[in-house]
């Protein structure tokens, strides 16, 4: 069956990373991350509603300072990954109750025959397990260094 891993470093582009999120609330972070997408304002508003709805079903803060907000949406036709970092941390009702500093936001189109959405979610959840408090992902300021570190973690996960 087609469950080939997705190369995160290929999916994540510089313009889809914000390493100095200013927001101090969950909704503010989601809004700031969505602004990294190429979507129009109305589509971003609709997505914000969807993402908030998803968070109401259970926080996507999976612990260790990482959250992976996600949803399927009609607003796009390809898998999209947006990443952000709030250095001070944001209250996200995470599973370990700790503030979240790293965000990986996934949006997938409804039609996803190869199930890339779940594959990507699983990969990032696995990758998050390797992240320690002193990880470079929490400190680097250059998006390329951020992507490179993701690449290292990806290799280690294999």
């Amino acid at each position: 069956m087609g469950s080939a891993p997705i190369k995160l470093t290929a999916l994540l582009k510089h313009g889809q990373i914000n390493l100095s999120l200013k927001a101090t609330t969950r909704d503010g972070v989601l809004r700031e991350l969505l602004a990294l997408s190429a979507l129009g304002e109305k589509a971003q508003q609709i997505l914000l509603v969807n993402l908030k709805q998803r968070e109401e079903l259970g926080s996507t803060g999976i612990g260790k300072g990482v959250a992976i907000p996600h949803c399927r949406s009609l607003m796009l036709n390809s898998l999209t990954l947006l990443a952000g970092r709030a250095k001070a941390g944001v209250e996200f009702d995470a599973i370990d109750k700790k503030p979240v500093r790293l965000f990986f936001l996934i949006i997938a189109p409804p039609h996803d025959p190869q199930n890339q959405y779940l594959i990507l979610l699983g990969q990032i959840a696995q990758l998050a397990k390797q992240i320690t408090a002193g990880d470079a992902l929490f400190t680097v300021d250059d998006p390329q260094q951020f992507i490179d570190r993701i690449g290292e973690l990806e290799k280690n996960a294999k």
Partner: protein
Amino acid sequence: MIQPQTELLVALNHLELMIHEATDEAPKLKAMGFKIDGLEQLQKAQADLEKQLEPAVLKQYQRLQQRSGRPVVPVINGNCCGCYIKIPTAVASDAAKNRTLATCGNCGRFLYWPSE
């Protein structure tokens, strides 16, 4: 301004996608470490939205859902993302985008312009 029925259709389709996630995909998501509960509130919101749709629109939506699983599709780069046919200019004119309840002349799906 978005046509109210279009907005409702988009919201309904999104809710159904989330219900799918909270039911069929919940075991996988929980195994990954995600919390996902609250199906009842989604189903209630779904019923509320269905009540707000015009009966003929809801019927068409349900027919499309049953037939293709994708009753509402975005128009990206001028193409219907359901059947990939080019949407005629008259339908896709600036004035018409999301301001009328538009359907694809080829596949019949409801159309939505996400870039607007």
